[in-house]
């Protein structure tokens, strides 16, 4: 049985990845998970300089999910290259670096710094709902997304994954804009913008007022959007949104995702990623499936 998948010429040993921002740089989870078992580690967003992020509280629990408003706190590309990348290079897995920025130039600067590294791909974060400048501003209008995708493609020698926001009217249009501008793949969904109010104190729970909703609560929305994106474009899709177990992961693959990422549910079950790797193998054996390719987008009209 073969679980390998290929995205933009890069081979991944299996389709199970980590969702950016939920797995640090892998270091924090190595006590729980054999990183060698994963298809890829997708890092926390990295900017050109260190970002402080938002004030606290940054986390709120909601029914079947959670809101976060971290605000892309990160130590910057310099520290990433000196500390986090050498750590990840010890493992037999792929590294995908999530790149964030406040301006076009910020993204380009990080992309250029990653050109001559062991990094397999870049995931461009144009969909974080928790920062005021940049990020989602590039990801909510098709023309803006088309423009930034093209600019990054000009400067990066790594394959580019555009991470799409679900906070749009037509996900198919956004997927097509990324593809038309030369994106090698797309990943979706980032979090849905949400809010929680503390009724007793009559205040917002999050210091940022709004936060990104993730967890099982968003999964049906994510599956639908992955399906719609898969109908709209030919480039590979990395699907995510509330994946907790093997069944959830397969739902995304059957909807058209070539790979899947586990996000908030790492917090619930730190072993979730490796359980899903094994679970997919067991499913393939049970259904006599030789190539995982046979499952990608297998459910359609």
């Amino acid at each position, binding site marked *: 049985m073969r679980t390998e998948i290929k995205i933009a010429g890069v081979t991944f040993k299996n389709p199970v990845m980590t969702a950016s921002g939920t797995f640090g740089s892998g270091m924090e989870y190595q006590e729980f998970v054999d990183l060698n078992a994963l298809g890829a580690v997708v890092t926390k967003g990295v900017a050109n300089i260190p970002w402080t992020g938002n004030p606290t509280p940054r986390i709120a629990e909601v029914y079947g999910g959670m809101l976060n408003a971290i605000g892309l*706190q990160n130590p910057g590309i310099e520290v990433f290259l000196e500390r986090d990348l050498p750590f990840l290079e010890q493992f037999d897995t792929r590294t995908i670096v999530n790149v964030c920025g406040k301006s076009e130039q910020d993204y380009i600067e990080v992309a250029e710094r990653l050109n001559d590294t062991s990094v397999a791909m870049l995931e461009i974060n144009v969909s974080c709902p928790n920062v005021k400048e940049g990020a989602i501003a590039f990801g909510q209008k098709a023309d803006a997304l088309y423009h930034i995708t093209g600019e990054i493609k000009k400067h990066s020698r790594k394959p580019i994954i555009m991470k799409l926001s679900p906070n749009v009217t037509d996900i198919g249009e956004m997927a097509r804009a990324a593809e038309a501008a030369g994106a090698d793949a797309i990943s979706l969904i980032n979090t849905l913008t949400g809010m929680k109010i503390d009724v007793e104190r009559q205040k917002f729970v999050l210091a940022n007022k709004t936060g990104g909703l993730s967890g099982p609560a968003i999964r049906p929305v994510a599956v639908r959007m992955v399906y719609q994106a898969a109908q709209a474009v030919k480039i590979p899709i990395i699907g995510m949104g509330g994946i907790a177990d093997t069944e959830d992961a397969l739902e995304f693959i059957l909807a058209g995702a070539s790979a899947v990422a586990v996000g908030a549910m790492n*917090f619930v079950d730190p072993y979730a990623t490796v359980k899903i790797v094994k679970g997919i193998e067991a499913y393939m054996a049970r259904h006599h499936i030789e190539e995982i390719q046979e499952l990608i987008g297998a459910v359609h009209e």
Partner: protein
Amino acid sequence: MIPTKRKESAEIIHTGQLAADVYEMILKTELASHAVAGQFVAVYTKDASRLLPRPISICETDHEKKTLRLVYRILGAGTKEFSTYQTGQKAELLGTLGNGYPLEPAKGKKILLLGGGIGIPPLLELAKCLQGEKVTIVLGYRDNQMFLKEDFEHYGNVYVATEDGSAGQQGNVFDALEKSEDINKLNHDIIYSCGPMPMLRAVKRYAKEKNIPAYLSMEERMACGIGACLGCVCKTVHKDLHSHVYNARICTEGPVFLAEDVAILPEEQNAGEEITCGRK
């Protein structure tokens, strides 16, 4: 080798109610064998609609019997669920998390432990570890439901303050400190503390005034508990070695910090902003 951090299902060997909304449970777990005072565990609810584990400080550890005693206040639906657990049931937990109180700096010193409300429990294991040293314990409660007070009396002189004045000194731990000649005469030279933020701020000010070190245990809303999500940060006075900004992860670099390292006072709130948000 068994990893020091892991998620497991632990048997509950005792439960009890200590005050109106304060409960305890004792868990049988191998995690107890390396737990230190001031560390915490994160306990998951059985209701899957509540995803995130609740961080709860370790009140006592029995390294031989491999048990952890958790004392917690009902603050919401999750802790409410915990309070219904019975002996013989299992609890899912992630542990042991964070760094505890350093014991080395206390050697040969006159030690002051300041605990407020549900910040009192982690100081009990600390008091136990400080046996043989000169320890004064000041505990602040809402009212005369003085949970754990008798446990503390084994390890030092205990002074009490209550918000409603129904026992001990009326007010908070600082009212007890200021009004008691006995405590003041002792000239303490190190403080260990856990409690609500207003109290921690007062501890920081007091320690600064007396020019003595104070260790504070901090609290914040958490998601992962292991340093990955960056949800539970606190502001720091110096650039944090891991984050490279003026933020430290309470779950990983903390929850115990030296008071002078955390920017918790109003006048410290802009620490480092101009440097780390250069493009603001």
